[in-house]
């Protein structure tokens, strides 16, 4: 049995769900939006059992051979009520996340992906140390709260972008030096050398790699007005480097943001541990989703 936790409104989760159905794999799907009705119990003195109920459905998670987890921030759902001051320190929905996270980290089942492995994405610079050790180039980075240092960094590197240091989504923007003149005191901000080249998104699924080239008129292609994606083939040594990096980070599935420069240097900006790969499936091919489903079915 394969445990699937996410939203069917999410094209990526839905495509994995449909591919599992097509290959006849048994699936225990739990809708993440039902988190307020989800109850998880974890108990034992060594060989713990983990039991989940959601409405009338009931699942013994220890019987799962694999799991695909794409949870969301439950506080974003309509109907979320912030715990009052005298409520327990941790609400039941947050506790569902903690307990399923603990189960996912400890189970021998195949998990895409274990929460502890996903955690590297919470610090871009921490992750960059692993990316660099994995053989990719990384852009020069500076975290500073001093506008003068940011100017100096820009003088040295020419074009500079700024973005969040954490996994909180931010729109990547190019630094305009005049903006620094206008800004007052600032907290620590991540500035990064802007790497010019072709954006390539590489999805690693176990030992397989699927790549898409992205042409865009924007600094951050996710928010650009004009973006065109096409299937790409990575040089074998780069594909191998991608697989090795994902393994190094403990990720079974990863979305790697790459840039290849005109001189052929390969940069990796980030490894996304829960990639929305459906967006990159050319012509609705679902070949990434199918590969994920086959991996899950193999357990």
């Amino acid at each position, binding site marked *: 049995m394969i445990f699937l936790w996410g939203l069917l409104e999410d094209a990526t989760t839905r495509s994995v769900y449909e591919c599992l159905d097509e290959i006849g794999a048994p699936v225990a799907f739990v809708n993440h939006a039902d988190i307020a009705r*989800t*109850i*998880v*119990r*974890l*108990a*034992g*003195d*060594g060989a*713990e059992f983990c039991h989940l109920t959601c409405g009338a459905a009931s699942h013994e998670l220890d019987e799962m051979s694999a799991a695909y987890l794409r949870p969301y921030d439950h506080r974003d759902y309509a109907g979320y009520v912030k715990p009052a001051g005298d409520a*327990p320190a*941790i609400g*039941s*929905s947050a*506790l*569902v996340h*903690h*307990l399923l*996270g*603990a189960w996912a*980290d*400890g189970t021998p089942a195949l998990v895409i992906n274990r*929460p*502890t492995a996903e*955690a*590297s*994405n*919470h*610090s*871009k*610079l*921490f*992750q*960059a*140390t692993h990316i*660099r050790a994995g053989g990719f180039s*990384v852009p*020069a*980075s*500076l*975290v*500073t*709260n*001093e506008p003068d*240092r940011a100017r100096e960094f820009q003088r040295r590197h020419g074009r500079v972008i700024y973005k*969040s*240091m*954490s*996994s*909180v989504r931010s729109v990547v923007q190019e630094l305009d030096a005049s903006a620094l003149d206008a800004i007052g*005191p600032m*907290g*620590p901000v991540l500035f990064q050398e802007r790497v010019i080249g072709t954006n390539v998104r590489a999805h690693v699924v176990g030992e397989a790699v699927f790549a898409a080239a992205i042409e865009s008129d924007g600094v951050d292609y996710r928010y650009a007005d004009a973006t065109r994606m096409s299937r790409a083939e990575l040089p074998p040594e780069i594909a191998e480097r991608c697989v090795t990096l994902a393994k190094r980070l403990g990720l079974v599935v990863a979305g790697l943001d790459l840039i290849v420069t005109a001189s052929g240097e390969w940069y990796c900006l980030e490894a996304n541990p829960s990639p929305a790969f459906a967006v990159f499936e050319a012509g609705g091919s679902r070949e990434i989703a199918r590969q994920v489903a086959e991996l899950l079915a193999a357990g």
Partner: protein
Amino acid sequence: MILVLASIIDEAAASFARELASDAAASLITCADLASAPLNVRHPDFDASTITVRGESWSVARLAGVVNLLPAVFPDELVFYDEGEREYQAAEIHALLTFFLSSLACPVINRATAASLTGPFLNPLGWRHLMRSVGTPLARIDITSDAFANPFLVSAGDEPVEVACLGQRVITPSLTDADARTLALASAGGVDYLRAVYLRDGDGGVRFLSAHTTPDVKSAATRAAIADYFAARRR
């Protein structure tokens, strides 16, 4: 310079930093200092990074050590930001500290990982998985998401056994097999400091209940052990 990284409201940490400073260069540092005092952290050339301690710029290469008493950065810590900004800034400073504390060449008690600023797990259940893997019996827990009761508290009638270790040395021995088990767990978890709590079972043995990676600086034995730890590295 030895830094004691702690919450702005941690008075025990402030007192410990003063105590440590009587014997070596040491200072308390908080998220407020990181946010407002000049800070320049670089990658890949991390050794060129600088932070400001008590108004003076310090190269990270000159730091002699860090005692970290912050397992995570929570929005409530950042009272100097507008309320609407605190959650974002907490994630940002946490991300910065994850990189900073894991990249320093000097000893860090405990070195940050992606999961926690003070060790390999933020989720306390992670330690149970690890303890099970090193063969220690576990105390029974029963957690249900809709009726939370902290499973790691010692109940009335339980006989707790507590052991702390630092640098593969037991600093508060129990004179039971919990001492060796705590050293084994610290080694498996890759942490310098670990405090583990066990419950005595009916057979004269112990069962693991919980582990804590933030040094207990209210304990005189722990404070002395940390001072000795750094003194030994200066010699």
